[in-house]
């Protein structure tokens, strides 16, 4: 009985053991592999190494249109593409993908910068 009372009073003043999940989300760990992201598309050279190394073949590289596409439902978050990328375009984000209703591919396009900036007009 005394042991039980200790547990009862302990539980009254303890922090909650559970988390109200959809409202309170735990911060991801430092090197967690939640989802894959084409984070630095401006550096991409469209070498196709990510698509070649991807185990489930979830990445397609379109060199002509300067676009990379990821099928998030095929992706297994292994991080091989991030390791293979020579320009460190791909990053693994800690946060997991949200649940979704439709199967959509994520397309990341490279924004082409003009080689010459127009001179400022006075």
């Amino acid at each position, binding site marked *: 009985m005394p042991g039980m009372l200790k547990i009862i009073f302990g539980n009254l003043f303890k922090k909650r053991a559970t988390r109200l999940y959809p409202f309170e989300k735990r911060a991801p760990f430092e090197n967690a592999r939640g989802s894959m992201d084409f984070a630095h598309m401006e550096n991409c050279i469209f070498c196709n190494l990510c698509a070649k190394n991807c185990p489930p073949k979830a990445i397609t590289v379109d060199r002509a249109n300067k676009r990379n596409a990821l099928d998030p439902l095929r992706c297994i978050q*292994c991080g091989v593409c991030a390791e293979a990328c020579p320009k460190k375009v791909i990053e693994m984000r800690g946060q997991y993908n949200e649940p979704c209703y439709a199967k959509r591919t994520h397309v990341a396009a490279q924004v082409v910068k003009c080689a010459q900036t127009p001179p400022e007009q006075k």
Partner: protein
Amino acid sequence: MVKSTITFGPQHPVFPEPIQFILKVVDEKVVLAEPQIGYVHRGIEKAFELNDPKDNIFLAERICGICPAPHTTAYVRGVESLMGIEAPPRAKYIRTIMNELNRIHSHILWAGLLGDAIGFESYFMQTWNYREKVLDAIEKISGHRVTYAMNAIGGVRRDMTNEQLRGLEKTMDYVESSLENIEDVMKDYTIKKRTQGIGILTEEEARRDGAVGPTARASGISQDLRTSGYDAYGDLKFEPVVVNNCDSYGRFAVRWQELKQSIDLIRQCIVKMPSGEILTKSNNPMNGEAISRVEAPRGELFYYIKGNGSKKLERVKVRTPTFANIIPTVTMLSKGCQVADVSVIVLSMDPCISCTER
């Protein structure tokens, strides 16, 4: 005597995985049990032949959701022996740590499921709460809770920093103290009543039926592949846990002591962790046959790998510990146990059907 038939499973409240037992019952006593498997066959062995050997690591990882570390370790060790290379010492230690963390979380999960089968729900909640801390430790090291993706052909993919090792030590302290909190369950009257003397598998029967892992060790057979000294186990000091109870309680006791042994092994690994490279790169052709055996949480895991010198493997055969333990379970069931004890007996051998059928 009227014999009636009861089909137990494949979907049953206490079975975490789909296995069916057709029980021939006289009154309340089981006189014969027939196992039926094949509900979750996914054709993974064929997929091994179609993929690149490097990608197969991730496939091997997905054979079993509870023990991805032993599956990938067995696969990469087989491919490494085909290529004629060896992983560097630091990689071997990291593999050992991942395997032991895997064993800890698998045994805690099993303890919770046994509590659930007996009807001890709060025990189930407590054990799974402690298991969550082990999964967090795994996620901090590998980046994922379930699919670690740590092993690579010739070593491991990620190194462990000193901070991670210190964090792991703290987690081990926490797990050890929390296991002490719930250790009294072993002495509980109800648990003993439900497990002691139930599901008896004698030493001769275990040898005859080819039991492996904790099921064999609970029947007094000192059989632990880790003593063969693969990976870093050769450098670590440990003795296989053997119990002579031969019943469900013995299998509980073996797993409980193995939890403590695994914590001790991880601590030894942290102390003895060598420095240096973690990956040996090689492009050697894969020619010939290789056999690789690893001690998974449930017992001996066996991989047969055949290469023909081309870029893809010719054949990969997996034999999982649960497959070896199904026949001993039938022996345990067919000895005239009560229908109410079937779930505890089947769970006491820790079935993992998804990896048995692949």
